């Protein structure tokens, strides 16, 4: 029963989204704690008014992410010998707050951010009746609400879906792809995108795109604050405890700065390749016509053009990898998308 498989997939996607959000919050707060400790050491441990002071410093720094220049070097020297936990926890809480706001923002607005980044423009039925009809037909087949439809003015061939749930979903297609597909192929591509919507891939991928960006940014802030600000400097040369702590923090910062983006990428690509196959299968479940999507994929794979408005964060959302050329698209193993030839083969092996 294919329906059951898709149901478990949807459940898994929702669960993974919750895990992703939780992991993201914990990571953000943990890193915030470390950054707070580093900053706290530079400010001094036992100043009575460190709360208000710390707040001000933090706000300065998140905007510019240039902490070294902001740090007052005339802070009391002798007192800064122990870890300032209060300040660390405070920064962790602020980081948690920032993470929470980020999560909310990417949950409710992530789709619009990605559409905006891709320079997508919403269209109405009068602009392209056939495209609307094709999508309407498929929403009837899947019993799902009608998504918003966007056009990306680019001659490269690609399409993607975004949003947080089927009720708040959008599908976007480039003009290059739209003009080169016939009705059946267009149906296949749109069915693939609507399957991403139905499977809640869009929620996960959109959260992922935003959060990977945030984690990379915060790791960068941490690395800078360890290397250039915080625990280092002339004031603590005599203090061996802090020296060791500083070394540990530096190592942690460097490891994090290197590992976090790679880890995020691994999670991103490992999950998204499987999703592409499942979305292809879901598309055939809707259209009962594997040839439409298979022919469209063949056309897509012959496209040499790079989609300018796509980047690494948004790449997993697209129907075929938007940045790579065809040779790489079909060969690379460590990619967010499975090779197109393999996808076509699997489509033809599906019995309807």
């Amino acid at each position, binding site marked *: 029963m294919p329906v059951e498989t898709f149901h478990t997939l949807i459940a898994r996607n929702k669960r993974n989204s919750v895990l992703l959000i939780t992991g993201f919050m914990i990571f953000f707060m943990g890193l915030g704690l470390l950054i707070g400790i580093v900053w706290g050491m530079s400010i001094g441990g036992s100043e009575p008014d460190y709360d208000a002071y710390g707040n001000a410093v933090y706000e300065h720094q998140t905007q510019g992410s240039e902490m070294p220049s902001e740090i007052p070097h005339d802070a009391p020297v002798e007192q800064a010998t122990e870890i300032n936990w209060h300040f660390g926890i405070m920064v962790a809480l602020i980081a948690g707050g920032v993470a929470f706001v980020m999560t909310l923002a990417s949950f409710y607005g992530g789709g619009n951010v990605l559409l905006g980044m891709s320079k997508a423009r919403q269209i109405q039925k009068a602009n392209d*009746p056939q495209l609307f009809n094709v999508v*309407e037909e*498929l929403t*009837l087949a899947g019993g799902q609400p009608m998504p918003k439809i966007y056009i990306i003015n680019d001659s490269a061939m690609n399409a993607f879906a975004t949003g947080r749930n089927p009720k708040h979903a959008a599908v976007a297609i480039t003009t290059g792809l739209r003009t080169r597909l016939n009705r059946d192929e267009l149906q296949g591509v749109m069915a693939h995108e609507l399957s991403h919507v139905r499977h809640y891939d869009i929620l996960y991928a959109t959260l992922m795109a935003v959060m990977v960006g945030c984690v990379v940014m915060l790791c960068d802030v941490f690395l800078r604050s360890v290397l250039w600000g915080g625990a280092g400097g002339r004031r603590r040369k005599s203090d061996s405890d802090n020296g060791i702590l500083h070394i540990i923090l530096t190592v942690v910062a460097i490891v994090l700065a290197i590992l976090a983006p790679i880890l995020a990428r691994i999670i991103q690509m490992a999950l998204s390749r499987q999703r592409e196959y499942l979305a292809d299968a879901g598309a055939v479940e*809707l259209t009962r*016509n594997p040839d439409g999507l298979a022919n469209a994929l063949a056309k897509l794979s012959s496209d040499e053009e790079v989609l300018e408005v796509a980047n690494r964060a948004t790449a997993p959302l697209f129907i075929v990898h938007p940045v790579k050329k065809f040779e790489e698209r079909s060969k690379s193993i460590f990619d967010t998308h499975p090779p197109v030839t393999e996808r076509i083969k699997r489509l033809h092996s599906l019995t309807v």
Partner: protein
Amino acid sequence: MTGLYIALGVALLVIVVVVAIYNGLVHKKVRCEEAWSQIDVQLKRRYDLIPNLVETVKGYASHEKETLENVIKARNTAISANGVAEQAGAENMLTGALSKLFALSESYPNLKANENFAQLQEELTSTENKIAFSRQHYNDSVAVYNIDILKFPNNMVAGMFKFTKRDMFELEDTAQREAPKVSF
């Protein structure tokens, strides 16, 4: 005393489970009903489009009276059809008459070039697809529902509240499931 509490606890648990199953079944049943009504919506849309189409074609191919009359006749028969079997037959007639009409348009370049005609053709093609897809969705929903009421312990709740098996939309042959290919 403890025994009473255990009995109460078990009773409460049973009620919660029954309510949950009942709601699940209602949800799936409503889905089937919605899917069924969607088929009617699309069929009605097709009836509404046909007079427009016939008028447009008349302007270019008025002497193809027979084909046009067949379309109108098939439409009226389909509207007044009673019962699933009779309706299915009438709908098939209509689909056939329509594809003949579109085939005929091939020999009238002026008609084919008419924007209004192209629009109507797209709308009708889409409506044919929508009919097919809403039937498919109805069958999918019924399949899920029918399996669900047979599963244990759902079957006990289904028996209690008279959830009965629903009929699928039967199609005479598989080729019919696909909308007629109107190439242009």
